[in-house]
């Protein structure tokens, strides 16, 4: 027998498929992974600490930079917590606009995931198709709030800009287009034999594991737990609309793919329903010029494309939070990685890491 030796491989922080600046210190035996040690923090900007010196309105643009793939949801997380602590009423039209943008952002986020995931698996074209469709959404956002990625759109008590003329019409056109377009994605990807072989039975974990690692979002639902904060802690006006919570069966990365594709469909359904009921009206509630949040603390969770995005605010009655804490779903979801990777080979590392769907801006805060 030949003597073999474990090799220490430093994957990242600069690596094409760690989706940013994640560093994985892996011990490999040939191509088999024996141990993984994720090192995070290369993108840490101290958002939570910075927030202590910012007024509530000033915090919003910082949240854009956490999960930069779905900034609308992040905006909402912080304004929602503040509104709850202040007991503010938000006008109906503002809530509807928020829901449209959040759901469109979820679609955009999942499209990024599908595209980059296929890119990780070595297929180049789906990435560009996904980004083309995402581009339509970004253009819609650009028209709405003048930014393509860091929107800074929501405010405590409403939203900053009303929908320009004809915008809602355009959104409806996009929804109809995208509902058809999804079929072509399935044609290209879902039946591809190589894709199925690469993903089926890979990265499986159980419901118990998922719960003990505090996974949320699609990473939890894939194990069969129908947990979605949009229904279970109904925030905004989600309770008015009908949508389903897709769940997985086997919990492998193929299931995650199907789950996220279904979530795109559900999000489009929600947007469609909102478009049917949205009416003219004010977009800002009655909010004082200087926001002084009453003393107390509040925790609210919203369903971001990646899971439960929580925002915990402790206020001492000033115009700045005393302490602000984000429960960043990517960070929590990433924790299960070392356990999943033991005994897998390097190709599967990419498939499993990609399946978790992390955004490093959010992991590192």
């Amino acid at each position, binding site marked *: 027998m030949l003597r073999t030796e474990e*090799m220490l*491989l430093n994957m990242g922080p600069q*690596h*094409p*498929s760690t989706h940013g600046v994640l560093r994985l210190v892996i011990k490999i035996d040939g*191509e088999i992974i024996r141990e993984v040690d994720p090192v995070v923090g290369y993108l840490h900007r101290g958002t939570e600490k910075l927030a202590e010196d910012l007024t509530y309105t000033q915090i919003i643009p910082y949240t854009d930079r956490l999960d930069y793939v779905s900034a609308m949801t992040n905006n909402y997380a912080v304004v929602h917590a503040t509104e709850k602590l202040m007991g503010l009423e938000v006008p109906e039209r503002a809530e509807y606009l928020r829901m449209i943008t959040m759901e469109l952002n979820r679609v955009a986020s999942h499209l990024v995931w599908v595209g980059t995931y*296929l*890119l*990780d*698996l*070595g*297929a*180049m*074209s789906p990435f*560009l*198709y996904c980004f*083309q469709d995402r581009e339509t959404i970004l253009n819609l956002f650009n028209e709405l709030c003048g930014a393509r990625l860091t929107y800074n759109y929501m405010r405590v008590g409403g939203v900053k800009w009303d929908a320009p003329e004809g915008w809602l019409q355009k959104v409806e056109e996009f929804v109809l287009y995208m509902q058809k377009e999804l079929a072509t994605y399935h044609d290209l990807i879902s039946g*591809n034999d*190589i*894709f199925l*072989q*690469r993903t089926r039975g890979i990265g499986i974990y159980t419901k118990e594991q998922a719960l003990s690692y505090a996974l949320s979002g699609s990473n939890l639902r894939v194990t069969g737990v129908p947990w979605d904060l949009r229904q279970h802690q109904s925030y905004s006006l989600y309770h008015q609309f009908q949508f389903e919570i897709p769940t997985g069966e086997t919990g492998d990365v193929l299931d995650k793919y199907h789950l996220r594709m279904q979530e795109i469909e559900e999000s489009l359904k929600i947007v469609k329903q909102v478009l049917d009921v949205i009416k003219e009206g004010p977009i800002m509630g009655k909010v004082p010029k200087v926001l002084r949040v009453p003393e107390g603390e509040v925790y609210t969770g919203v369903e971001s494309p990646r899971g439960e995005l929580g925002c915990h605010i402790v206020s001492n009655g000033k115009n700045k939070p005393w302490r602000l804490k984000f429960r960043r779903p990517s960070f929590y979801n990433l924790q299960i990685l070392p356990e999943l990777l033991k005994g897998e*080979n*390097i*190709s*599967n*590392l*990419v498939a499993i890491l990609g399946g978790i769907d992390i955004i490093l801006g959010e992991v590192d805060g």
Partner: protein
Amino acid sequence: MDLFFYLGPIILMLLLLGFVTYAILFERKVIGWIQNRPGPNQVGPWGLFQTIADVAKLLLKEDIVPGKADRALFKLAPIIAFVPAFAILAVIPFTESWQFGDFAVGLLYYIAISSITIIGILTGAWASNNKYSLLGGMRSAAQMISYEIPLVLSVVGIVMTTGSLDLNDIVLAQKKVWFIVPQFLAFLIFLIASLAELNRTPFDLPEAESELVAGYHVEYTGFRFAFFMLAEYVYVFAMASLTTCLFLGGWLPLFGLTMIPGILWFLLKFSLVVFSLFWIRATMPRLRVDQLMQFAWKVLLPLSLLNIFLTAIFKEIPVLSSFY
């Protein structure tokens, strides 16, 4: 004749470099069209000078040899990888008269010489003293050796039919019907195995960008890197030429259109093969290492043995034997 003997290879070399330049552009264009984007279009009209600009850039780049690399081997590796790529072109019959080395064992020569490249890749991977390149080199050695076997066995059927290893004879034996028809199974095996030999998607594991960054040439810069790239594209040229000769009737015309010269027919069929290589690249994800080896040994190898067996049987059946 003597003049041709000396000038011919130089002309071929220039043609080949021209091919590589424009194959890269064509590949980027084709993939661009498939992905709804224009592809390179800034340098020169229609992006025609894009590759020239790229090569100029590579020439101007600093030539870096990593501090802990094995300097001698590191510098030797691109040459070992690159020379056989050119050497194999000698036996390709582009037309009836345009072939540089018409030997009786042309096919065998092609296969034997082309396997030398893997030594260059492995040397480069080892000499770089980089973990990613080592993994890429190991993968590529395993892959190329595994897929060489079905590749060779798939053409045995053709050799049995023609009774010759001479590529000229093989082309001439297709006057009646191209070998793609009676040897369709062999054609599929050959196409898949040649994709793997060329390290192209879905078999691009040795340089799997999302896993190994760039695989075996991760430490190479500038012109040494260009040599690896050049070798890769010359192999595309050679493999497409070989496919054309073996299965698509080489320079032989279709529908008796003999007024179109053989070289154009050759080019047409050859371009079709090259296009399909690019097409596959734009469509497919990448296989996993273990699946790759399984596919070679458990699927392709038995199928190619079956093909040999079937060819032998069909040769004896009276009605079919005229095709075999």
